[in-house]
């Protein structure tokens, strides 16, 4: 009996020692539940509902829906359009609710909200000191579109820069901000060039109709223009436009067929990836013509690439949960399909 008692004591002591020793190992403190992995913005239903954000861990094993609501116990708002980042802060742009929710990107705890000065906000980009948000204003008024400038210290809008109608995506190169004027509910065909040192409109660059996505490759700015759709009665072809940012001149233009309206330009190493006519195409930046053969089939609502993988969303019938498809671009085969929220419109990497 006594032997048994001693044995138990011994066991307890050992357990204590071993558990102490594991605590002694220096591990970096986790920044939050959502560190690393993917964030998917789900616009939510067209009306009568809320958009959400889906978290997917780096190994795709953990999927958590509605993380903003889970953490903050409130709805995010109607039409969650996009997220922009500045260090460890995420700016969630909620289009129809005319607001930006500012959260810690790793814990998703709400820091602050911007509810004044935004009207149909679309995309956010940060220079480190300022944030820039494209705004359509009244979507049926083509003269009130603007970029809201946010002071990232006070998290308030300090000024606005009026621009041509339909500003959408933003890209920053060498302190110069390029704004693609996709054209809101209509069509436009320019980029606005904004000098972030004085927050003024420096110039505009005419590209193709409906510039819908931009990437940077080898110090060139590549702009994919969808062209005017058929129903406008003035259908124009899609264009891939290469811009030399040293003088903002158009270096090269690749024309698609008139009935071709490409979307979702992304970059994988030295090649450009885009979605067209129910397929994904890949063009090497140096190729002198557009590719004829597609690499993957599918029509995607949003698409982006990272480390040799394609992340593409399927919005389904737009009235139920969508999916994120992950494709290995070395084999062009699907690795994973993961359920998201309603109308997944943006894929972001939280690292």
């Amino acid at each position: 009996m006594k032997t048994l008692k001693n044995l138990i004591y011994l066991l307890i002591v050992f357990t204590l020692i071993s558990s102490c020793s594991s605590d002694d190992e220096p591990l970096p403190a986790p920044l939050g539940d959502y560190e690393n992995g993917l964030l998917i913005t789900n616009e939510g239903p067209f009306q009568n509902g809320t958009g959400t954000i889906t978290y997917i861990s780096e190994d795709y094993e953990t999927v958590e829906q509605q993380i903003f609501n889970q953490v903050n116990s409130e709805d995010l708002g109607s039409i969650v359009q996009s997220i922009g980042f500045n260090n460890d802060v995420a700016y969630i742009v909620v289009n129809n609710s005319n607001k930006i929710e500012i959260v810690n990107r790793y814990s998703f705890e709400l820091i602050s909200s911007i509810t004044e000065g935004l009207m149909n906000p679309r995309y956010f980009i940060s220079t480190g000191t300022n944030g820039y948000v494209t705004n359509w204003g009244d979507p049926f008024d083509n003269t009130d579109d603007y970029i809201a400038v946010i002071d990232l210290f006070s998290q308030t809008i300090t000024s606005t820069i009026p621009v041509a109608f339909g500003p959408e995506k933003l890209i920053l190169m060498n302190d110069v901000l390029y704004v693609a004027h996709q054209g809101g509910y209509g069509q436009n065909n320019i980029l606005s060039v904004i000098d972030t040192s004085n927050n003024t409109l420096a110039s505009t660059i005419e590209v193709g109709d409906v510039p819908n996505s931009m990437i940077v490759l080898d110090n060139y700015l590549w702009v994919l223009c969808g062209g005017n759709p058929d129903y406008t009665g003035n259908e124009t072809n899609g264009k891939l436009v290469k811009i030399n940012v040293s003088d903002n001149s158009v270096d090269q233009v690749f024309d698609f067929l008139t009935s071709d309206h490409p979307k979702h330009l992304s970059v994988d190493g030295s090649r450009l990836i885009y979605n067209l006519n129910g397929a994904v195409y890949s063009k090497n930046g140096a190729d002198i013509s557009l590719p004829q053969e597609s690499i993957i089939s599918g029509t995607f609502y949003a698409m982006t690439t990272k480390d040799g993988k394609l992340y593409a969303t399927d919005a389904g019938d737009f009235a139920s949960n969508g999916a994120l498809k992950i494709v290995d671009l070395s084999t062009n085969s699907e690795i994973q399909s993961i359920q998201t929220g309603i109308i997944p419109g943006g894929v972001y990497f939280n690292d």
Partner: protein
Amino acid sequence: MKGIYLLIVSLMYSASLYAQLDSIQYLNEVVLVDTKLEDFSEGYVLTKISDTIISRNPQSLTDLLNFNSNIYLKENGYGMVASPSFRGTTASQTAVIWNGIPINSNLNGQTDFNTIATSSLDNITLRSGGGSSQYGSGAIGGSVHLNNTINFIENSSNELQINVGSFSSVGGIFKRKMATEKKYLDLGVDFISSDNDYQYIDLNRKNENGEFNKLNISLNGGLLLGNNKLIWNSNYFSGTRNFSGTLTAPSIDSYKDVTSRNLLTWNLTSKKWKNTIKAAHVFERYQYYPNRENPLFFEGNSNTFIGDYQLEFNVSEKVTVSSIFNYTHIKADGTNIINESRSTLAAIFLWKHLISKRISYNINIRQEFLNDFENPLIVSIDTKYTIKEWYTLKANASKNYRVPTFNDLYWTSGGNIDLKPEISYQGELSNEFSFKYFHLNMNVFYIHSKDLISWQPGTDGIFTPLNISEAENIGFEIAGKFSKSIQKNHFNLGLNYAYTSAKNLEKNKQLIYVPFHKITGKIDYRFQQFNAYYQQLFNGKVFTTTDNNSVLDSYFVANIGLEYLFLYKTMPLKIGFKLNNIFNRYYENVAYRPMPNRNIQTTITFKF
């Protein structure tokens, strides 16, 4: 004619026999313009909503049917666009028939139930089951019949009702009736305006941008010239509504709609023959203002011209046949539809056979011509068997259809001119038990619909409608009524329950915004000139996404009302109070759109 009206009266909610200001003037020559609703539908369940019930929800057909029928109504915030779902079918599969004329929008296929002024109507009949053979496109789940009656009885009366309620709601209804044995004329004017800025329960917010005002003018007249009857029905509606925001999105938009309907009916009757010629014009216009402060708007207009000839012939005492030729020409234009038109000629054959006093059946056949669709041959058969004095069995089976709307066909961008009509098959069995104090109705139904039109995103990201969905609706309905008088105390109870399973067959999921369960109930008590009533509604949970992952909770709402009739000789007047949502429950009928908190409505009605 008299016999038919007596039948209507006997089928009515017994409440209609109650203290109505003009309850004396029954019988004699009362004319219902849409005769086939009564004459060739014995095997269908017809639910009458009497003028007493109508008068308790005088300014909203949505409220009226929500609390008094199995029809589920989806309302985008109180007073906003409201669309019906009859037996789990879509709003465009519920035909709304005004005096026999279909009035669903040619543009979106639906009727907004918040644009129908109930006070302008003499009765509302809900006809369950498919009715395409008689009423054409869209009568799939059932049809809602809005009727005016013409009474050739010496009469001259005026009625003025003033409504004042919560949320700065003010309304007025004026009705003038003049009639002799040969002439009839009535005029009705109905106006309502409301700020509709109710407080959201438990939230520090109000319903914003929900203001509305509505004006309805109706005019009905009749002339009796020997065997000839000439009847005129007119209705004009104009409404302006701001569209209220949701919990997550503010709103600044506004909506205006105008409808007008005119119908001329000439009826020549002999012992064996009945000729009816109708000419009608229906106009609709909507104007959508994305920003109520700006003059910019988007619009749609449609004009419908209808010519209709019906010949009814009594072959024998037991057999009646009728043939109808209906020519309909529709023109539509607007911001997204550029001058489109459609002409349709419909030939309809109706056969009615009374096998015995207890058994009768009808066969209806319809074929359409001229338009560009593959027009299906539409057939229906219905039968009524009175097994016992207290037990009647009704059954019907039909093939029904819905033609694509002008939006489906021509909308820029996305419209698809290659669409086919939606096709549906339905069957129904109904048991009616009628006792002295108690009336019970039990129905089971089955509807299978194919080639359903659904807007789908294409590879170019543009939504376009396709004939791709298939649905199956199965359900049952129970309606019980109990009425009894103990000395001068009159009690009247009613309970409706509907179970509806409506499945999208590709996904095998319940259709969105179709509740499995809906229960309505009422208790009505009258003592001399005093009247008290209680209305309640239980609306089961609904799914808000097609994968059934998002659920909108069920809700329960109840109203009470008190009325007193002062029988002043020179000017009788009635005062009414109604308390809506007495338990002050928070509820949403459409997700993220809270409905009103407890509110009061007062009415005063003068008769002179």
